[in-house]
């Protein structure tokens, strides 16, 4: 019964979506020509994708940061109030201690390399592929490596997550400050203020600052989510 409804709705949906997707239409080239000529001068970033989401459409980036904050807060509230099923501490299964020591050493030694790569992707996002979001996610993966490595050594060692809450709130304030700073220099908000006063500082300072703020916010939010799910947080 539900399979028949499924097949009928698939057929109807393909009839509706087919004329939009399948035919060969020309993709407009005006936007690409405009950005190729003016992207570097207007915002100061060589990576044109960074120039778009940090310069021309920075409001969308702030909206996405708020969506990430809402998701992490919602998941934290929904999961924290109920006890999760545990599979027992490490001391009760002594035959697994050897394997977990190997995992602990490997992930513990690999974590700084991953975090260094994440910081590089975040910092140089205006010159090469990368940026705030990418660097933030890689940084979060590095911090989760440390959490995985810890679980192998001692049974019930947990990470203190007060630091991550602090970093998340501080980077939200940093973003708000960065949004309002161009008002001091006479430009509108969210516009790179150093494109008008080119002699004092290089133009990329604003872009780098925005990238770091977004990267720290994304990294701390996703690390909190990961730590909560691995059940490694103090209450």
């Amino acid at each position, binding site marked *: 019964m539900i399979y028949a*409804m499924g097949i009928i709705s*698939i057929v109807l949906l393909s009839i509706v979506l*087919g004329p939009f997707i399948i035919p060969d239409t020309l993709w407009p080239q005006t936007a*690409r020509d405009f*950005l190729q000529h003016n*992207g570097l001068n207007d915002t100061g970033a060589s990576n*044109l994708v960074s120039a778009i989401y940090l310069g021309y459409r920075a409001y969308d980036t702030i909206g996405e940061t708020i969506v990430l904050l*809402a998701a*992490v807060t919602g998941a934290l509230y929904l*999961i924290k109030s109920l006890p999760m099923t545990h599979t027992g501490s490490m001391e009760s299964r002594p035959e697994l201690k050897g394997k977990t020591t190997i995992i602990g050493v490997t992930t513990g030694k690999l974590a700084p390399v991953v975090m260094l790569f994440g910081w590089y992707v975040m910092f140089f996002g205006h010159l090469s592929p990368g940026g705030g979001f990418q660097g933030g996610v890689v940084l979060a993966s590095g911090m989760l490596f440390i959490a995985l490595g810890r679980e192998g050594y001692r049974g019930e060692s947990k990470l203190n997550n007060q630091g991550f809450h602090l970093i998340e709130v501080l980077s939200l304030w940093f973003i708000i400050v960065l949004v309002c700073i161009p008002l001091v220099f006479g430009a509108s908000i969210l516009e790179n203020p150093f494109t008008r006063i080119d002699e004092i500082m290089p133009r990329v300072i604003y872009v780098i600052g925005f990238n770091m703020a977004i990267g720290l916010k994304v990294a701390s939010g996703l690390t909190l989510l990961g730590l909560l799910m691995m059940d490694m947080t103090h209450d």
Partner: protein
Amino acid sequence: MINRILVLCLFLLGFYGLMVQKNMVKKVFALSIQNSAVVLLFILEGSRIGSLAPIVTEAQAAYVDPIPQALMLTAIVVGICVTALALALVFRLYKKYETLNIEEIQRKAIDES
């Protein structure tokens, strides 16, 4: 053109999975697959007009359109937020009704009220 038909098949597969599957975790899988299909379609369409990655260098060839790529960065992050929150809700439902089958949950909820 065959690429676009395959991406349409991926989207319809996700939609069929969302409608027909009774396990709630499979429904969340289907949402993630649909997100992947939309991102693939945009990047596929935007890459037709050029042949270089959109980073300003000294080369003279035409760049790929950078606007769909910037939009899809946001789309991917919002997709993972939706997945995380949906799975938190699935966790709460499992703790209350002890099953992941959505028809049994419907029956138990009607019996309770």
